[in-house]
């Protein structure tokens, strides 16, 4: 019923737009921008004078200006790496002028030109949202995954438990874990099954990453409390191929292949995205008195402990691979893109530690794989000018198995097990836990450009998850055996207005969250509905300087496992309410180019007030069994600030420094259900870095060693994390408190590129000074490591 209502509302909106659209009879210009090889150029800036109207080409190189009065115009086309084109035109009344451009220039070489057009990244940054946009091009030759690139960004902190593929917690402006949502091309990551994760997706798959802090635009149709990350991949690029392989310390291999090809005549299109990762993750664990870390093992006679100065991780192999093939048609009358896809991913993961590194595992493994068929469709100018639609649907079928059958209760850092208990595993009684989950997603996005000033967006999302869990060793035990289902509907409506020649942009949005869930087949369905809303505004004071502000009353609905448990080590909590937060951002951006010098700066302050905060609490039952259960807590208040400064000099030098700070405090005065004052009221939440920053400096030169089209580039990157307390810092005598020491991690990389970036070789050193660095719950991260990466990359063939 609910779905029908929403669809009807959507159709009604569309009809209203259509009626309005048909009233217009003004002139328009549209066309395409391509290079000399007829490859279409996306993100080219098209400027129309007088009036200074600016649009960018889409991924197919298309652009359009609507509702133009008749008259004489000058049209300018500019894009990085190409010569600027300018043409005078005369537009008659009600004329639909078609005008395409072919640009000259070397497409792979960045020329020393003053860049007049703005990149897509700059444009997104200048929207009202508090957003970081990371163009991944500069990292494509490094051995990074998405997380490592994101952690260089302001307001973002990724805390990893170990090496490649390890568990991680993602935090945006102090809200972390489930409070942040992830997307690939606007599709929630969770709908890709369990194997897709930011710690295994190589950077080469991505073209751009957008980090929305606190306020999430409705086109990312999901419930996110603290923000969202959207990865925009390199697909639908016409013809392109990117192949890379890297090898390095801890026997780490990484391969990524992504490519696309469109048959010009038939419009038949093939996209391939794939990666393979493997690592022993056998880095050294260290004893480090400064951090109160001692690797203790019993002496051979068992009467005492001895301290190992270091020990290699011995049960931490990680392997993951993903393959995605898309087949479809492009540029048809009925569709700009219509593509069927199939994705498969597979992860094998040996667990080395529990939540802390004191708990050492030697025989606990987790394996999972998912198959995901998908369909996507896009059409611009559907029914009427200015209306475009995208549709996405997929179904992920995932299986996960966690094996814990060692007969030992635990292992030690020397790789040896402790006592033999025939019925025991390392996490409790022996178990082979199976989780089968299916996730179905349908997403519809409608955009309607009423005029240059008014843009509407409607997003509809239906996400349904079922999950079944059982223990292979104890298959008839009902505690383990559980099937449940949760469906979430998210509808977002956004209205954007642009005034004063695009100087002022306002977005107003509302979101509807519908929930229905069933704890198991015999129980009745539970339903609930919630409404979120927000706005984002930006005002450009000058061409260089602007300010922006945004606000959202955000919701996150509890997930399936939080509500109903997994039947194994997570107990469900039916009484969970959705968490909500009022998120405020205020920021500025500045960018100035003088000759070859380009300087940019942006900064923001923010405030979050999160209520009914869902927290997972571990507890031990009377028999010593370890479980966790989610609960609504009073929540936290966060205030903070971040900034980023960037300077580039032509293609010779680029330098960046940023810093992020936040103060998250317990906002609830009384313990729940009591009149007892909380001892943590007003105190900073523990175990979270609250001050951190990065510097990133690149030096490069083209045409070195007398060879044309090559480039040598050196990069130095440093990450700083201030010390932070492992527990509530106010509580307990100061002398007893445990801190994670401040960290200064330095990475360097040297890349040599040939043939305008077609062939690349990179040598990279991570954690060059071999610092002992820790993360969440004082888990040690890898020490010094070296990698070499080979990459082949072409945009046309």
């Amino acid at each position, binding site marked *: 019923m609910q779905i029908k209502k929403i669809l009807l509302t959507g159709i009604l909106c569309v009809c209203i737009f259509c009626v309005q659209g048909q009233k217009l009879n003004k002139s328009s210009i549209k066309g395409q921008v391509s290079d000399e090889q007829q490859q279409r150029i996306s993100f080219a800036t098209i400027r129309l004078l007088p009036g200074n109207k600016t649009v960018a080409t889409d991924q197919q190189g298309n652009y359009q200006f609507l509702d133009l009065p008749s008259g004489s115009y000058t049209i300018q086309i500019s894009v990085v790496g190409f010569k600027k084109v300018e043409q005078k035109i005369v537009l008659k009344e009600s004329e639909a002028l078609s005008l395409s451009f072919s640009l000259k220039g070397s497409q792979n070489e960045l020329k020393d030109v003053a860049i007049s057009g703005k990149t897509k990244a700059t444009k997104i940054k200048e929207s009202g949202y508090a957003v970081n946009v990371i163009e991944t091009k500069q990292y494509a030759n490094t051995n990074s995954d998405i997380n490592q690139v994101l952690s260089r960004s302001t307001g973002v902190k990724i805390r990893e438990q170990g090496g490649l593929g390890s568990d991680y917690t993602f935090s945006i402006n102090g809200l972390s874990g489930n409070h942040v949502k992830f997307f690939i091309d606007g599709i929630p990551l969770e709908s890709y099954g369990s194997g897709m994760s930011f710690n295994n997706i190589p950077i080469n798959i991505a073209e751009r990453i957008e980090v929305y802090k606190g306020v999430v635009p409705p086109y990312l149709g999901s419930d996110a409390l603290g923000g969202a990350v959207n990865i925009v991949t390199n697909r639908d690029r016409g013809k392109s191929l990117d192949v890379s392989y890297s090898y390095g310390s801890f026997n780490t291999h990484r391969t990524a292949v992504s490519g696309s090809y469109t048959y010009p005549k038939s419009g038949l299109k093939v996209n391939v995205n794939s990666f393979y990762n493997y690592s022993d993750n056998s880095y050294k664990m260290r004893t480090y008195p400064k951090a109160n870390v001692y690797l203790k093992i019993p*002496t051979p006679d068992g009467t005492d402990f001895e301290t190992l100065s270091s020990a290699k991780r011995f049960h931490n192999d990680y392997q993951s691979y993903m393959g995605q093939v898309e087949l479809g048609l492009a540029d048809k009358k009925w569709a700009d893109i219509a593509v069927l896809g199939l994705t498969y991913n597979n992860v094998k993961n040996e667990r080395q530690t529990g939540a802390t590194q004191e708990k050492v595992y030697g025989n606990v493994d987790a394996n999972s794989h998912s198959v995901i068929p998908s369909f996507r469709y896009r059409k611009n100018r559907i029914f009427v000018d200015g209306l475009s639609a995208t549709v996405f649907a997929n179904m992920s079928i995932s299986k996960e198995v966690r094996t814990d059958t060692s007969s030992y209760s635990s292992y030690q850092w020397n790789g040896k097990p402790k006592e033999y208990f025939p019925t025991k595993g390392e996490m409790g009684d022996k178990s082979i836990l199976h989780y089968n989950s299916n996730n179905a997603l349908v997403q519809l996005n409608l955009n309607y450009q009423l005029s240059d000033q008014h843009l509407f967006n409607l997003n509809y999302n239906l996400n349904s998850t079922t999950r079944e869990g059982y223990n292979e060793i104890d298959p008839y035990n009902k505690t383990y055996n559980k099937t449940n289902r949760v469906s979430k509907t998210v509808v977002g409506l956004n209205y954007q207005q642009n005034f004063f020649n695009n100087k002022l942009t306002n977005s107003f949005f509302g979101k509807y969250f519908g929930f229905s869930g069933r704890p198991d087949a015999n129980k009745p369905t539970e339903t609930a509905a919630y409404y979120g809303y927000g706005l984002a505004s930006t005002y450009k004071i000058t061409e260089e300087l602007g300010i922006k502000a945004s606000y959202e009353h955000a919701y996150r609905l509890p997930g399936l496992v939080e509500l109903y448990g997994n039947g194994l080590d997570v107990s469900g909590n039916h009484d969970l309410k959705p968490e909500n937060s009022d998120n405020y951002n205020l920021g500025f951006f500045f960018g100035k180019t003088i000759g070859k010098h380009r300087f940019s700066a942006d900064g923001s302050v923010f405030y979050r007030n999160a209520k009914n905060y869902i927290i997972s609490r571990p507890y031990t039952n009377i028999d*010593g069994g370890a479980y966790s259960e989610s609960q609504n807590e009073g929540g936290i208040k966060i205030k903070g600030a971040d900034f980023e400064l960037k300077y580039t000099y032509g293609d010779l030098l680029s330098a960046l420094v940023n*810093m992020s*700070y936040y103060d998250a405090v317990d906002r609830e005065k009384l313990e729940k259900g009591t009149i007892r004052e909380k*001892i943590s009221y007003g105190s900073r939440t523990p175990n979270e870095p609250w001050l951190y920053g990065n510097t990133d400096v690149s030096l490069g030169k083209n045409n070195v060693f007398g060879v044309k089209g090559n480039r040598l580039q050196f990069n130095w990157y440093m990450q700083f994390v201030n010390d932070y307390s492992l527990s509530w810092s106010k*509580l*307990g005598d100061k002398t007893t408190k445990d801190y994670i020491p401040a960290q200064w991690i330095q990475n360097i990389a040297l890349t040599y590129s040939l043939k305008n970036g077609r062939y690349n070789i990179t040598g990279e050193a991570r954690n060059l000074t071999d610092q002992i660095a820790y993360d969440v719950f004082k888990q040690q991260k890898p020490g010094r490591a070296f990698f070499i990466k080979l990459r082949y990359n072409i945009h046309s063939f």
Partner: protein
Amino acid sequence: MFTKTKNRSLLFAAALFTAASITACSKSNGGDNGPSAGNPEFALHYSTSKGSYLLPINDLMSGVITPVGKGTDVTSIFTWGENIIQKGKYFYNVEPNSGKFGKYSFEKGVLETVKEIPFTAMSYLYLGWHTWTDDKTLMIGGRGNSEYAVINVDNMTLEKSGVFNTGKELPKDHTLSINSITPQGSKIFLTFMVRNEVTKLTYDTAYTASVDYPSLNNFKITGKDTRSAPPGALRNGYFHKFSDQGNTYILTHPMPMLGGNKPNMPTGFYRVKDGSTILDPGYFFNVSALSQGDNQLGVEYLGNGKALLINARDAKNVVKEKNDWWYKPMWEYIVVDVNTQQIVKKLDFPGLLNSRSAIVKNGKAYIAVNDAKADAIYIWEYDSSTDKLTRGAKVEGGDGDTPVLYKLR
């Protein structure tokens, strides 16, 4: 060069965030439990929503006892409260997850590790009992089994460990579940129940036995009694015996969940006459019979034959699920007299959360009173000679779990 960079960046950071710091508000810590200097006489182990703490107490009767800036977060040290053994300023603990036996000292309000040794001498590391055979020799055993270990806590060595050898005294496939243990010179006197490992049943019988010490040989069953069981406690750290006028009184723990789960049996005191190794057949103080069939747990001996117990008021109807044994406000403090065999007093509190510890000093008992409806846990003083109750220090931050008080000198 490196340090320079560091300093510059820090300066940078400092400059930028001065504004943010200025706006950051701070909250005062509130009251204080007397001067923090010196060695506190008492300590409190309790849990809060932010971990469990061992806190110093300088004054039981005034001020605020708080973990803000005081004490030690023992969440990851004392992971299982029943495994804590305290003697003077020293705390001993078996850590079941990592297989460690540790000795810690609590001085100047801070817990410090003296020494930790690997401890795998028992198959089940949740303690059922402990006893001191002399000042430096600690004997411990597992809950619900007949395993034991003897540890010299001066040099932290394991002196002996194993399973009580019952010889022919018990049939094959039968094990002990020791409920009280009393060193008597060259002998040890045990009270226990017997479990049939084939049927997995524990008999409704209280047994007594003696065994030679220190050889732990020559195990002899000295008697059986079916008036109540188990004769003593099932879990370590539960008060269950005291001596008065040369006699030892042992409280039985038939209570479900926290005791031996014998709902058909009453809670009461057995008596062991001085030098005897049997339960006095002429004495049984049936406390349940005086309290509408309720079961009790022991709290502390008050002197003059009087003991403080907590009564699980109407648990038969109140307890619906396992956790209710701890978190239902059904507990009431009662004072019983083993000589007159009477409940002499019910302390005037509303129904409380589970509490099982008290300190006795100069004839006065100090108890932690956890009333779920109050703004905090409070220490109360009960003077049994004048029958007077006085409210004392406030304990900030406690949750529904049982606070435990320790006397350090």
